[in-house]
């Protein structure tokens, strides 16, 4: 299996604060990796390095073999990104927002195809052509997922993707990510939602103060066990 995401010994500090400390991880085709940690653990910094928005002090971050720092544009081209808060253009409809973000990437989908993406992400049909100023956070999140999906990327980076989603939509998101992985995508999902991580990912890494403390296969732990391990690491 090919490594789609490869992070080797990256370090990143902001003044005296170590945000990421010698972190290494690899994500292969078909794998969903959950980066579990509390607020300020270094999850978002790691994602921002992979997205090419931050340069690590040392170490390398590769997306499908492309250096995300030195060749950010090419690396980004292969990434579908879903932020914690998807901010859309409020005066545009869901379909128009999706269409616009696709066009930025030089992708032109038919209106039917755009609606199909929104359907796939669980956005109720009646909202497709309504302005997103009327959308709830969860609905905006679904459009954000559709934007990433429509890019048909090989790598997906998700920052608290289930934030604001109702349980049903979260479950649908998990199913969707699993489907993407089964088609060969590599997915990195940063979250502090133990249940969602356990439900969605194949592998889990616990991060604290920028250090990757433990990695495990999801199949090896139940949700309760994972919660206990997590609490133990957070308290020590």
């Amino acid at each position, binding site marked *: 299996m090919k490594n789609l995401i490869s992070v080797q010994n990256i370090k990143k500090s902001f003044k005296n604060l170590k945000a990421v400390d010698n972190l290494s991880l690899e994500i292969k085709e078909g794998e969903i990796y959950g980066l579990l940690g509390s607020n300020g653990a270094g999850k978002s910094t790691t994602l*921002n390095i992979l*997205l090419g*928005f*931050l340069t690590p002090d040392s170490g390398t971050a590769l997306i499908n073999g492309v250096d995300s720092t030195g060749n950010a*544009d090419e690396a*980004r*081209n292969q*990434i579908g*990104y879903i*932020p914690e*808060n*998807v*901010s*859309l*253009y*409020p*005066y*545009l409809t869901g379909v*128009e927002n999706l269409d*616009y*973000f*696709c*066009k*930025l*990437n*030089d992708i032109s989908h038919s209106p039917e195809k755009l609606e199909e993406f929104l359907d796939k992400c669980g956005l109720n049909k009646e909202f497709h052509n309504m*302005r997103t100023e009327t959308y709830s956070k969860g609905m905006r999140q679904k459009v*954000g997922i559709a*934007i990433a999906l429509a*890019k048909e990327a090989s790598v997906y980076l998700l920052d608290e993707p289930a934030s604001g989603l109702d349980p049903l939509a979260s479950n649908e998101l998990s199913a969707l990510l699993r489907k993407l992985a089964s088609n060969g995508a590599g997915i990195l999902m940063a979250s502090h939602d133990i249940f969602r991580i356990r439900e969605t990912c194949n592998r889990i890494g616990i991060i604290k103060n920028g250090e990757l403390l433990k990695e495990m296969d999801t199949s090896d732990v139940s949700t309760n066990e994972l919660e206990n391990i997590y609490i133990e690491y957070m308290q020590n």
Partner: protein
Amino acid sequence: MIDIIINEWKSLIRNQLFIYSTVFFVLSLSLVSWMGILQQENQQQSQSDAQKHVRKQWENLEAMNPHRAAHYGSFAFKPLNILNAMDGGINDITGNVLQLEGHVQNEIIYSEASQALSISKFGKLKSSLILQYVIPLFLIFLSYGSISKEKETQRIKLLVMQGASIDKLVNAKSISVWIYGLFLLIVTVTIQSILGSTNSEIFKRLAYILLSYGLYYFIITSLSTFLSATLKDKTSALSSILAIWILWTIFLPKIWGNAVEKVHVLPDRKTFKEDMRAERNQGIDGHNPYDKRREELKNKYLAKYQVDSLSLLPINFDGIVMQADEEYGNLVWDKHFGSNYLIMQKQKSLYQLSGLLNPFASLQSASMGFCGTDMIHHLDFLKKAEDYRRVLIKALNDKHAYGGSKTGDWKWTVDSEFFKSVQGFTYETPRISNHLNHYLMDLLFLFCWALLIKVLIRVNAVKINVL
């Protein structure tokens, strides 16, 4: 790029506040342009009536000595270019009636500001006021948050991830707002063309106006968007661009204007008149028969006609003396007024140089120039009126000298047929192609500013942090 522009416009036109503001601007510009043109036409009509009345009076003068008619004189009314309705320039404070008579060059009088307190205090409401002050402010309000809003909502990460570079985003967003400025500009120019009388010269001037304002709006929107991208938040971007706008429109023009007057000092009116009078007194006194220079001229003419007494001359020597006096006076005037003219030209050039620091100064100068209401156009009118005065007085003096009367015959008269034969004063605003050199510096500075900001965006775009 085009997708970003379309998206920006979609968002704008679905915003009710934007629609109401646009309706307000279009109505204001239409109303101000229409009122300006109406006022212009009324003023033009009054001037035309006055000019006709003056001409009629001239043509119906009772039989009189030509020199007496020279003292009676005539009037030149400064016609207003139709684009005066768009930008009044200095027309409100300079006069618009010039009395033309023998021996003396009068000052132009009856400025509108001298007759209306509101004009002297606030100026007139012209579309230039809206185009130069209000619309740029609105463009600033539309663009100052364009990138910082994307940063604050973190949407910029999504945009960059989808392939939009910061450079492309800044350019596309500033162009979107710029297009709006152009739209309002085109509305004004179109209303001006429809309601006002137009010809190819007016169209040429309007094209230059469109170019100058277009460049200025481009500078404002690009700078505002650039600050929005580089500064930390919306508040910093807004306060910075407003500070720059205030500096450009309020402080720098005044500071630079005062400095210009200190560097190239115009003599005060009293000194100018005293110097003129002193030098004029050194010439022939046309009304003093014992003047020394008059004697020299007399001897010259006696020798020319080979006679030994003025009474034997076949011409009227008084007319010759009057014309010689006039020509000497003209030389004195040319010297002193010419010197003032040069100083004013230098002042204008130095003021135009402020465009290096302040594109608003270049815009103002270009706007007045292309509307035909600046100092250059005013001086052109004064020069043409003075040229006509010289032709008129020479015609009268020549008639006095060679019309058939003898020296000392002050009771000799000419009738209205002669007065009718003297052409009246007509003036046409000069063609802009002949005066374009005066405004090239303004256009050049506006262009350089636009280019500079483009380069700033290009160079700094890679350094802009999206987080």
